[in-house]
């Protein structure tokens, strides 16, 4: 048995070592989309933001929606992997890496969307040169920077032993792996240090991750605009972020599993467990949404109610009810039953959640701006091809980077899987002994 397993680990090295035609095909399609988005952006840069559908008073649109959305997705990884690691959930071993990568990569697109949204991107360094820390936008900048650094380290640390493995396999790009492996030899001391560092980072990233999305919500909540100025926004956003993050992770795992034939590593049980997590988040999301809108409704302030009704029955009803459909109505039954918590079932639920969460961000940003406090002319916002192109470009670029990552590094943590095989059985037994009465060794 041992022998077969050893051979089967080889499949984890396969993507790094061998590249098929379909990879290049996908790559070129993605690159075309990205180039198209680059073209769209340079058009926007040259002409001004007038090429978007934005106008007064709807000063923010898809870019800001995407910003919140991408930052939300980034909660997938680090937070989940950190919690699972700290909880010593053994089933985490084959999924942590793919989760962490999502975090690091998607953060760039969150930040990127803010930059795309700037009227004068050439002056973006003013944010650093003349920072005004009273502005929630600056809080975002700081917390995202910290989060990016922390989650990059958190991704990198568990990567070191695997890089060393690659270095030692005499494959391609040895110089590259040699530089990154930082002289990992797998000694006892190194292992001890690494474990320590990983668990330290795991504890660190959790508050950072929570703060990031809280601060993102503060961008809205700190203004006095109706239906933004809400104390619940912080937790609401964090819950939403974890929600969309898990969904993104499930989608990514499904794809990796199919493309790289990792059925052995990413088993239905993983999807089942993640599905339960997603179910919890669905209910939590519903709870927050319900609270938020119920509070508004009972307050009944006219300025809030205009927006409220606009979402419930007015122009934004399709978006609002779409959000409700995708975030709640579709995923809830799928995730509620063990029978449907299959890889496919969770995939459908996750895609639905991702669409729903994007709509949620849109429904937060746009309707409030459409109805400013002072009477204003009716302006209808709809994103132009530029904004859609950039959205497509961001998604494609993210997929591209993700793909490239899988080509450079194993997407399932090899050493952790091996460690699990070698040590965990005993460790778990030992551990259970420590918390259950009656079977203790004493």
């Amino acid at each position, binding site marked *: 048995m041992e022998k077969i397993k050893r051979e089967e680990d080889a499949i984890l090295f396969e993507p790094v070592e061998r590249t098929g035609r379909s990879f290049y095909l996908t790559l070129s399609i993605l690159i075309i989309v990205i180039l198209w988005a680059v073209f769209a952006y340079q058009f926007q840069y040259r002409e*001004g933001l007038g090429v978007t559908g934005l106008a*007064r008073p709807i*000063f923010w649109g898809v870019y800001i929606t995407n910003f919140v959305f991408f930052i939300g997705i980034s909660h997938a990884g680090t937070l989940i992997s950190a919690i699972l690691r700290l909880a010593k959930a053994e089933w985490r071993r084959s999924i942590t890496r793919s989760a962490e990568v999502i975090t690091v990569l998607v953060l760039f697109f969150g930040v990127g969307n803010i930059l795309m949204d700037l*009227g004068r991107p050439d002056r973006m360094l003013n944010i650093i040169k003349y920072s*005004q820390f009273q502005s929630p936008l600056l809080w975002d900048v700081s917390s995202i920077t910290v989060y990016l650094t922390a989650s990059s380290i958190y991704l990198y640390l568990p990567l070191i032993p695997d890089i060393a493995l690659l270095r030692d396999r005499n494959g391609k790009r040895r110089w590259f792996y040699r530089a990154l492996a930082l002289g990992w030899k797998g000694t006892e001391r190194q292992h001890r240090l690494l474990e320590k560092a990983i668990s330290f980072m795991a504890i660190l990233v959790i508050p950072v991750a929570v703060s990031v999305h809280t601060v993102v919500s503060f961008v809205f909540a700190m203004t*006095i605009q109706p239906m933004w100025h809400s104390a619940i926004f912080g937790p609401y956003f964090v819950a939403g972020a974890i929600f969309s993050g898990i969904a993104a992770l499930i989608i990514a795992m499904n794809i990796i599993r199919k493309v790289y034939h990792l059925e052995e590593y990413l088993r239905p049980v993983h999807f089942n467990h993640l599905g339960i997590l997603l179910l919890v988040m669905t209910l939590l999301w519903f709870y927050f949404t319900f609270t938020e809108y119920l509070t508004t409704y009972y307050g009944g302030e006219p300025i809030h109610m205009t927006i409220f009704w606009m979402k419930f029955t007015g122009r934004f009803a399709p978006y609002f009810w779409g959000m409700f459909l995708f975030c709640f109505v579709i995923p809830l039954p799928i995730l509620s039953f063990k029978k449907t918590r299959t890889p496919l079932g969770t995939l459908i639920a996750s895609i639905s959640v991702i669409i729903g969460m994007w709509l949620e961000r849109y429904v937060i940003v746009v309707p409030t701006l459409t109805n400013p406090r002072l009477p204003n002319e009716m*302006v209808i916002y709809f994103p132009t091809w530029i904004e859609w192109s950039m959205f497509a470009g961001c998604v494609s670029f993210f997929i591209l980077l993700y793909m490239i990552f899988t080509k450079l590094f194993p997407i399932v943590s090899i050493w952790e899987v091996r460690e699990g095989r070698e040590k965990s059985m005993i460790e778990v037994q030992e551990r259970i002994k420590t918390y259950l009465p009656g079977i203790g060794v004493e």
Partner: protein
Amino acid sequence: MHRWGMVIDLDKCTACQTCVVACLAENNIALIGPEESAKGRTIHWIELVPYIQGEYPHVKVRLIPRPCMHCDHPPCTKVCPVYATYLNEEGIVAQINYRCIGCRYCTTACPYTVKYFNWYEPRWPDEMRGALNRDVSIRTKGVVEKCTFCHHRLLKAREKAKAEGRDLLPEDYVPACVEACPSGAMYFGDLNDPFSTVSQLSRERRAFRLMEDLGTEPKVYYLSEGM
């Protein structure tokens, strides 16, 4: 220290919009054509805001000229990440266009929607360029702009008064909108001076401010219609 403020008497106001056009001419505000206007991209630093209440035939329409309120507690300045908008010592909410990165956070934070964004580079036909006001800078695309209480006039007035060796008189510094108002419905001056017209009017029984409950403490006062 001065604290500049404005009073608009709605009883005298005729809703003629001279203030709007005077402001456009004074401040080199970009020409926004029909297509862009239809998208809601008009730039009017001061504009008439209509409140339509009731139903025919018992309908009351109020048209309220709305410049920047120059709040004492401006919600917009707090959120600017680069100090491009701030409250200056004399109570003017400044907008430094050259510092602005165009994130439009202030525009969304302002409850009075007084801030405008340059969606495109402002352009004029060559025949008209020479007629621009040389005392006011031209904004570029991608920056936020708004009413400045014609602050450039204060610079010139103060310099003139100083050169003539006298104090700044109330009539030295008047924004373009106030200067042009045909029915004399707009007043401008120092709210800190208890005897100035504006500060006396701001204490009048008819005086109110827009959305006082938000606690923004605007320095633009209105005098309500009627007795």
